[in-house]
């Protein structure tokens, strides 16, 4: 078992694929059926970092909302990292993810942050233009992901793990 563990929270509007991303990363599974998350589910995976260090990512999959309420804020306490998740086919979900990041900063001090823009397999239906992500990349690390195909998922979580390395 790894000695180092970091709590990270999945934050994003409902239906953007937070639970599916965790399922892909932790269990390498995917389900087409949308099942809303109530409360929180905690999963973990150990990431081997360069230099032979193992880091355990404790991943909190939190019920999706466009804004943080007191319950969700409570879930965030103790987190070191945030995975903001947006759905490329819903531009509003990108704005929601960025808003959630701002709100989360009230609870967590300078969290490590990555943005997953999910549903890359549906890129032909994306509302988010490439130039928008090019701009956002200036302030946050962005991964285009597909929980369905797995594209970008491993790379995104591993990058956050590297950012959280001691």
């Amino acid at each position: 078992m790894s000695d180092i563990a970091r709590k990270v929270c999945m934050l994003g509007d409902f239906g953007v694929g937070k639970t599916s991303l965790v399922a892909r990363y932790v269990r390498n599974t995917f389900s087409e059926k949308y099942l809303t998350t109530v409360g929180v589910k905690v999963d973990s995976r150990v990431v081997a970092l360069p230099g032979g260090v193992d880091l355990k990512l404790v991943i909190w999959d939190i019920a999706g909302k466009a804004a943080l309420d007191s319950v969700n804020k409570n879930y965030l306490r103790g987190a070191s990292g945030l995975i903001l998740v947006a759905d490329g086919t819903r531009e509003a979900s990108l704005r929601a993810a960025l808003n959630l990041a701002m709100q989360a900063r009230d609870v967590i001090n300078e969290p490590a942050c990555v943005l997953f823009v999910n549903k890359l397999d549906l890129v032909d239906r994306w509302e988010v233009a490439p130039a928008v992500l090019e701009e956002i990349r200036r302030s946050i690390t962005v991964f285009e992901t597909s929980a369905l195909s797995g594209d970008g998922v491993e790379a995104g979580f591993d990058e956050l793990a590297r950012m959280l390395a001691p």
Partner: protein
Amino acid sequence: MTLLPDAVETYLNHLLRARARPLLLTFDANWQLVDLHGDTGHHGLDAEAPQALVQQLQDLFLGLPHDQPQDLPFVELAGGRHAHVHLVPDGDTFHLLLLDAGDEHGRTQAHQQLGNDAALAGIEKSRTLARLRQIKSELEQQRARLEEANALKNALFATLSHEFRTPLTSIFGYLHLLERDGASARDQALLALRRNASYLFALAENLLEYGRGEAGESLLDPGALDLAALVADLDAMFRPLAAEKGLALVVDAGAAPPAEALFDAVKLRQVAINLLSNALRYTPAGYVRAHLAWDGTRLVLEVRDTGLGIDAGSRAKVFKPFNRGAQHGSRGAGLGLSIVKRLVERMSGSIDLESELGQGSTFRVALPALAGAGMPQAAPAANRRSLGALIVDDDPDVAALLDVLLGDLGMRTRVASNVAAALAAVAAEMPDLVLVDVELPGISGNAAVYQLRSQGYKGRIVTVSANATESARAAALAAGADHYLTKPLDFAQFARVVQSAGAIS
């Protein structure tokens, strides 16, 4: 709160315990389990081997202080069970109280699912409505185009019946004159026959070119240009007509282009014939002058007349087919200038018009030399360097073919067979051009294009697909491609697109 009667307190205690199925785990400061109470089985806890649940709870409270009460509602535990988890500090130890949330979770989830599904359906509904509106507008545009095409076709037939009949009547008339009067009418009749035959020839050429434009682009045929011969030919063709109208005609040549500069002589001749024929038609008095010369970089053809002129409002319209009304008192099929424009653009040239109503018009055509193989010439040699291209295609045969084609166009190439390899190759080498097949295994080529653009790649991207629908094309361009080509590839078009990409890079 005042205590309730004992009987009620006891009842309530039993009721709440029966519903909440409390499980209490007491830990020391080092997360060593020191005590355990309650319904272990219900919460999926093996009392003999509690380590799995303990580990899960430890993860749950990672980063949280143990000396303050904590309340974490709706936590999913092993086996899909749900509990409200409370931390209660107690001196050097702390208690974790798990209260069953299964039923409440089920109800909340069903309620939330309904709300979320309805919201997602609402989004999908407005999206579908927007798509329908888009389709409706496209259909309307298509209908307008069809109506316009139909009107053009009708105009064409109406014009042609007149345009063919007029010179043919004249030809038959002069033939009759020749038969009747013999040698005495010969010179005048031959002149008239030649003039009308030339006109019919030009009309036939224009119709062929117009038809080609409808069916697809015609290829260029570059060759050496004999400027003197072209000038002599044009002069011979138009002098009789000018003489008949009492107009002065000058057709002359300036500097000849260098021998290595190639042009499509047939198309150039067609451009000159149309412009001269147009100038003579709309000039009642004065002169028409055509001048052809190489200006060091381009071949310039200038046709100046002292004719009716074209007012500012009609200048843009004269290049559209069947718009002869733009020049008053007109005669002709109204195809000439539209075909001139099409031919000039086909040869990568430009056309300008200066005109003043009542004073005359000047058409100026500038044509760059053509490279070999029917392609417009790429950037001048001084600016050209060996461009790098990345081919993203999983089919090795297609990739090899594209490799050869791009090599022929002077490009350095590299092949990637999937999206990940493509992204890595672009990051490493920043090629000038990326050629992407949409139908890649796994994630589509459009996703690769999107990621390249969102990562700031500014080079040219050409998407290739077997899907010829407008929506597929729109999706590729929305993802960030500059061009969309469909399979099977039209090699001439492919080369043109690649070279234009190279010129811009």
